[in-house]
């Protein structure tokens, strides 16, 4: 047997695709872009555990079982540290997939330049989004881009540097993304502007936040879904909604394909509640009387009835569980989408940014807030209704108005995993938790620890110096 034939015998011919020959054609580039979403939608991240974690932190929820320590507000125990480590991994896996695309798209031989720009913009949008999640929960993190993605040791960047990348990526995205996303669930330029407006709010660049939000409102691309009765809210959150006029950027899920459903609802429900056939862990719960947020929540607000149902399991007769993301036909996981950015969010960003940028509430800002509020009472969002509208006169100070925005956002985004970060951004987290739950939030509870799987192997990070306080 000749040497050549031996050589051939030992060559490997896997029936799979090698990275070197891929990312050339549009369909290949799109398959690479699609892979950026997979880690985000994972059950260890925004597929379930991320929202579960953050909702246990919220003023209107209590955690149960292994999540109980979260609403002690004294930092994380080992179980929860490993949960957030898992989230870190997923965000960075998504970032890696985005970096690969940022690197490969310019080299794609069979893709037109115009398409390259919008593909690149999508990759950068998603990279920014991942860093935005990281920076809000961990502050500074190692900054990995297409230029240093293969380096093992990368130092922890300051939060400001992370934000700088987020802003520059999103700015690229808003100028290069199309008017409508590549697919339902892929970002449009308006999605980039919406995220950017929230990023600017975090950075205190209120004028910029205002401008971005205003541009989205002015585009006329979005509108609030009209609601007449409680059940109509299903048109926003229900499992059968493919898309709506309110959708700016959602993570999309499907119940009909195994592994592609949203797992988050199982943490909300009680088994055999009828709302969710796969069962339930009732990991977070509340109390309609003992919790002040719920106690003070206007029962005429359709959102209250939509959100809460009574379920006792030994903690008293007024225990309630959340049913916002109900899917009565779910088989293994839910068909509901994760509404990461809804038009209602954008309207409330706008209201807040207007107030902050102008050092006081504006009529337009109040109108946008009232649109969200009216809808929640079954009214036409576009038509002023004195029976439910807030009057600007009653909230004329910045503090009063921002408090109103904060409360409205709490009702509107209940169970969406946004509450804790809002309170943190507004700097009122300790005050609100003290007020509602009577607990002093420990400083270490405000940030998550950098995982051991990072600093054990990334020699540019010194756990003694670079770890978040308290860990």
């Amino acid at each position, binding site marked *: 047997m000749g040497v050549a034939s031996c050589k051939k015998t030992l060559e490997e011919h896997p029936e799979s695709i090698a990275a070197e020959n891929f990312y050339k054609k549009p369909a290949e580039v799109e398959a*690479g872009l699609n892979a950026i979403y997979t880690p985000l939608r994972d059950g260890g991240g925004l597929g379930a555990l991320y929202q579960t974690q953050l909702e246990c932190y919220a003023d209107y929820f209590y955690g149960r079982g292994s999540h109980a320590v979260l609403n002690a507000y004294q930092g994380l125990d080992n179980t929860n540290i490993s949960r957030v480590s898992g989230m870190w991994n997923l965000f960075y896996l998504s970032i890696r997939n985005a970096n690969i695309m940022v690197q490969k798209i310019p080299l794609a031989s069979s893709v037109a330049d115009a398409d390259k720009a919008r593909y690149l913009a999508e990759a950068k949008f998603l990279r920014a989004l991942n860093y935005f999640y990281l920076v809000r929960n961990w502050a500074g993190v190692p900054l990995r881009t297409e230029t240093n993605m293969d380096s093992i040791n990368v130092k922890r960047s300051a939060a400001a540097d992370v934000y700088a990348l987020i802003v520059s990526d999103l700015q690229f995205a808003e100028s290069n993304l199309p008017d409508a996303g590549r697919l339902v669930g892929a970002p449009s330029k308006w999605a980039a502007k919406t995220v950017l407006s929230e990023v600017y709010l975090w950075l205190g660049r209120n004028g910029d936040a205002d401008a971005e939000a205003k541009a989205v409102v002015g585009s006329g691309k979005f509108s609030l879904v009209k609601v007449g009765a409680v059940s109509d809210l299903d048109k926003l959150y229900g499992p059968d909604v493919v898309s709506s006029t309110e959708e700016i950027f959602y993570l999309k899920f499907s119940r009909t394909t195994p592994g592609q459903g949203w797992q988050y609802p199982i943490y909300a429900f009680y088994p055999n509640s009828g709302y969710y056939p796969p069962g339930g862990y009732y990991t977070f719960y509340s109390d309609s009387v003992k919790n002040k947020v719920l106690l003070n929540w206007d029962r005429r607000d359709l959102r209250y009835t939509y959100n809460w149902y009574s379920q006792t399991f030994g903690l008293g007769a007024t225990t309630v569980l959340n049913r916002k993301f109900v899917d009565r036909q779910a088989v293994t996981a839910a068909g509901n989408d994760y509404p990461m950015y809804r038009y209602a969010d954008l309207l409330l960003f706008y209201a807040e940014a207007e107030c902050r940028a102008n050092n006081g509430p504006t009529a337009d800002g109040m109108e946008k807030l009232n649109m969200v509020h009216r809808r929640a009472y079954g009214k036409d969002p576009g038509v002023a209704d004195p029976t439910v509208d807030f009057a600007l006169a009653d909230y004329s100070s910045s503090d009063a108005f921002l408090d109103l925005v904060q409360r409205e956002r709490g009702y509107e985004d209940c169970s969406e995993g946004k509450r804790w970060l809002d309170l943190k951004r507004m700097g009122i987290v300790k005050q609100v938790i003290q007020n509602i739950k009577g607990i002093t939030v420990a400083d270490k509870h405000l940030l998550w620890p950098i995982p051991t799987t990072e600093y054990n192997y990334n020699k540019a990070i010194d756990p003694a110096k670079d770890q978040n306080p308290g860990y």
Partner: protein
Amino acid sequence: MKLTAALLVCTILQVNARGFAQKVSLSERNASPEKVFNLIEKQTGYKFVYTETFLQKANPITVHLQNAPLDQVLTVCFSNQVYTWSVLNKWIVVKEKPQPPPVATPEPPLPPVDVKGVIRDEKGNAIQGATVMVKGGSQSTATTLDGSFVLKGISKDAVLVISFTGYRTEEVSLHGRSEISLSLSINPRSLNEIVVIGYGMVRKRDLTGSVSQVKPAEVTSYPTNNIVNALQGRATGVVVQQNNGAPGGSISVRIRGTNSILGGNEPLYVIDGFPYSGNPVFLQNGDIESIEILKDASSIAIYGSRGANGVIIITTRSGRSGKTLVDLETGYSVQSPMKYIKLMSGQQYAQFYNEQATNDGVAPYFTQQQIDSFSKGPSTDWQRLVMHSAPMLTIHLTVSGGNDKTRFSLSAGVFRQDGIIRNSDYNRYTLRGTLSHDISKVFNVSYNMYLTRLDSRHQNSGSSNRGADLISGMLMAPPTLTPYLPDGSLRRLNTAYSFISNVIVNPLVNLYRVSDNGRSDQVFSNAALTIRPIKDLSIRISGGIQNENSRSDYYANIEPTTNSPGSASIGTAQTTSLLNENVVTYSKSFGDHRLSVTGGFTYQDYVTTTLNGSGTGFLSDVIQTGGLSSAATPGIPGSSYQKWALLSWLGRINYSYADKYLATVSYRRDGSSRYSQGDKWSNFPSAALAWHMSSEPWLKSSNVVSDLKMRVSYGATGSTAVNPYQTLNQLSSGYTIFGDALNTTYAPSTVLPGRLKWETTDEWDAGVDAGFLNNRLRLTADVYVKKTKNLLNRVTLPSSMGYLTTYQNVGEVQNKGLEIGVESDIFKGPVKWTVAGNISFNRNKVVKLYQHQDIYGGTIYTGSLSDFVNLLREGQPFGVFYGYKEIGYTSKGDIQYEDRNKDGKITADDKTYIGNPNPRFTYGLSSVLGYKGFELTVFIQGTQGNDTYDLNMASSLDLGMGLNLTQDQFNHHWTPANTNAKYPRVSRSLSGNISNRFVEDGSYLRCRNIQLAYNLPVSSWRLGWCRSLQLYASGQNLITLTKYSWYDPDINTYGGSSSYMQGIDYYTYPTYKSMTFGIRCGF
């Protein structure tokens, strides 16, 4: 020359030695016959042949003769013996004096005939000196130089018995023939064993390496679902551990310790010359002819890149010429759980959780009235609802025979085992045939074929937490609850109490509402053409196919208590391995030199494809896995493809001088498709020397040392630790949703591909084989040092890279050890007692890891704990347990951990070594005691000094979940009145850690088998159609001495080929004990 009873079962025709010229001078008083015979042998060159029985019955000899003829000397020597003698060629055969003829009326004699014939060995060479005798008669003769013999005047329908040392005794019925021709086959069971080694065979006395043999009787002595299980405790240096007790459950085998971190640590199985990929579950114990375990590098280097973990050579039975033999073995066993864990009763459970409620400041869960009612009614015993006594049945039938040209063996086997967990079983059916035919003196063809059907119902021991799987559900389900509701439906447990685990599932759901079946059809087939163009040269060209088609069917019924809408999945796998081997062997003796040269070229490939489908949401359970397309939500089908190929050149030279000095040199060069370009090829050399000291004149005459051989060897072997394609930059595909539609994704996996090459193991071995007192005491001892380098390390990357790990060849692991095997025939004669023992010490150390980076075993999540247990760290034994040390309780009854770095906090930096799963030594002890037809066999086996991590007890710290716990915890937990307690206070806010609390001594001594057999005296019944008949009763695992508190220390939940999670017991299918009754007979 001393021969065993195997040769002389018979009387031999007396041939007068008068007239032989040799003169002998002897002057001995009351000397042992052995001594006298020795002196005669030295003076005359004649050799004595006698049975052991003779030595026991013989009287001392007194003889004073000078220059007397041999026959005169012999006459004197035998004058006061009950034995007499005869001379055949140069042999002096000792036999019993003829008894007075029986009183029975003699049958009318048939007209006598003269018979002549030729006796050859397997290779067709003439055998000189084979004994040919008439069965039940007095005539016998021995074959001459050309293997021929003549017997005159014997009965026409006589049966001839032909025997020769080291070969199987054959019986041939004449049926009127006057000429016969017969080939004797080597009998590996005889004392003068032939040992099967890689690509050849050697006489045991010529062995230069370290090879253990396991006899077929040991493999079939008690029923096992895997022949490898039967090796446990039988051979030095071999540790067999079951991963769980499930029928057909997997096992881990380690030969001389653990070498590899990521690669397999399982030995290579070579079945009838075919290097088999995987564990040979398809074999029936009854088909085994012999098992050889190659341990040192000189023996295994011929298997090169696949030998590093040792090689187990399994030879299946083949036919032999002569009378057609029928062997039937059958056994029936009743298995039962080895023990039940003592769990809390209903009343205790209620009291315990009320105590938790009180401690945690919530209202009691149970009223006093309820507690009282629990004390009256029986508690639910979930263990007995799940486990039961279960039967096991083995039937094995072999028919073998042949003539001088063609030999065959056919067998059929059935192995049926029901598990001690209900609704689980393992069934194996096999059909097997072997055929060997001599086309001419030059050409031989042989073929063997094994067909196996495996069929199994699994009960998953899923090792999940808080009662979510069958085993933890069985242990944790509240004893206060009945399994069924009054309407007959199963009770839902996770809402039964406000404080109960939200994942607990009624174990009967898993037992009766979920089916998980596997079946596989395996074909294992070999054919070979052997050419002997000249006398000393043999060319063997062989081809083999290993093929397996397997399918698993999983169906979870529509079940409200688990919200199951009915879900089905089917997985199929098709595996084919093709082998071609071309081996040339040349053997030549000249003078005192003996030389044997083997060279060859082999090719093997292995292709696996899989296909699977699933569906969720069915209208009826009737469909099971029969209609995936009717699922409300059909799953996405999946498939995969994998192939590897291995090309090898091999060579070996065996040389011996004067039967005293032996040398072996071997070499193999392997090319594997799995490695990076440029690193595909590697060389594996070895060398060994042995010195037969007992053949030296100065030891030859020793009365104490009858056999002594020193061996030393060195060699390099390899391990193909990586999976195919691991060095390539592959993208994996997946799906994501946009809108409501599936869209394809492509991205690299989280493993960064690296440039990889072989793992190599260098091994030194020194050994001694010795026999004392005429080999009544036999000893083999070996010391070895093994160093495995270029170990493939899983290198953890910072998780911010997106890649979590990569692989690099950087690690080093060392194993060194000592193995001693002793065997002794304590009594021979009417009472026969043979005792054999073995003990193996292995010390294992991780020498080098990538950048001194620790490697953690996988994280285990118990609900309340989430951490790893095993650690690989430089300087430490493999997989040492790593965790926190407890130092008692706080004043409140919480567990206190040692703050080892004194920083005032309990962090991962306070972890330390808390146990070692590697045994200090393992041992086996067997005893066979025979008297008349009775035979008592006891087999004991054990390990000493290994720790077991009893993670079953993790639930003892998980007190907010309403899990049932042990009575021990009920009785011995912390209360203000009992602060020196075994368990902490009962509180749901208790925080636990992976700590020394769960480390238990996993040493055990087990009576693995005890058997009483009775061999019916069928030969005295003169039935003709029945050769042997044995009835036996035996018990397996009846006695286990251990301090371990859970079901069984011989469990390794996460064990497997490449696992470095070792010694952990976590909700695993329990092991069984059994009673077996059976029959073994031959016709």
